[in-house]
């Protein structure tokens, strides 16, 4: 077998599959006309390839598509279970950490709310007390008009 035969036989597969450019095909065909050895090799490759036609694909099961949807459903169910399982199966350390975090958060928020309400209430009470003081001072009405007591009373009203 010469080098031309070797080159041709290496390309026979692609030639038979029509994957070669036209000029390459013509070269091969020319050689095949002249070389019985390569021609026989080409015939044998062709026949063994044709024998594969005996393998038929069997018909599809009629339930194929519904079985695919069943697989999809099962997969989605398992995905959801896995997520829920992760929540419910927390380790004791993780659960304790979450509880502690909850207590701290609750305490902080509660403190903020109570403190602010107390400030608000205090301001309100002070205002009322001040008014009461003025009322009681105003009740002390047996002082003469130009007396020190009256002067003091007028001063507190302005304050």
């Amino acid at each position, binding site marked *: 077998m010469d080098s031309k035969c070797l080159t041709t036989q*290496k390309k*026979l*597969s*692609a030639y038979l*599959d029509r*994957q070669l450019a036209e000029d390459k095909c013509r070269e091969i065909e020319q050689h095949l006309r002249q070389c019985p050895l390569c021609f026989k090799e080409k*015939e*044998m*490759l062709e*026949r*063994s*390839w044709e*024998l*594969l036609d*005996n*393998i038929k*694909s*069997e018909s*599809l*099961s009629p339930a*194929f*598509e519904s*079985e*695919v949807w069943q*697989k*999809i459903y099962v*997969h989605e169910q398992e995905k959801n279970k896995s997520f829920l399982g992760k929540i419910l199966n927390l380790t004791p350390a993780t659960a304790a950490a979450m509880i502690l975090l909850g207590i701290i958060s609750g305490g902080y928020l509660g403190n903020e709310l109570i403190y602010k309400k107390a400030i608000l209430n205090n301001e309100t009470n002070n205002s009322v007390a001040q008014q009461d003081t003025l009322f009681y001072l105003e009740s002390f009405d047996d002082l003469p008009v130009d007396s020190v007591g009256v002067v003091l009373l007028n001063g507190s009203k302005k304050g």
Partner: protein
Amino acid sequence: MKSNNAFEADPDIQLMLDFANGDDSAFNQIMGKYKGIVIGITRRYFNDRSRAEDIAQEVFLRIYLSKNKYKPKSKLSTWIFRITANLCLNDIRSRKREEGNLDLINDNTSSTDRELDIIDKLEKEELNETVRSALLSLPERQRLAVILSKYDGLSYQEISKILNCSISAVDSILQRAKQTLKKQLNKYFKE
């Protein structure tokens, strides 16, 4: 949402994008169009019919689960072939690891209802069995390349994308496969 890349002309890609946008009927259309092709590959790749159907169903499960991250980078058919090829190859490899060896020839050819002479029928059955055995005896990538080339009519370029190798590698794979087939089947060549 419209595809705005080089594969815009592929109507199947638009179907997949519609499915990604929430249209489950598009998925049914994809499955209807490709189930025959996918089972054709898996049924020839595996001797075991139920395994072939399982793998084929798995292909469509993978397509379904890909909807949120699907980005068209090739024709939809190429993408589906690639998923099929990877599942076939991975299944064989995982079974080899589990079982140590692979008993590929354990199926009986199903009987036919054709009215044939009993000897002729037996000869044909022997031939079918021998041809199937010859195909199944090929290494995984050679077997897959033969199936994609012979039964799906794919070009070397398309096969190279599916097998993730060069075109010359596909040529080399098929050359070796054909030489093996020739040696195993030469007694059936009519002179």
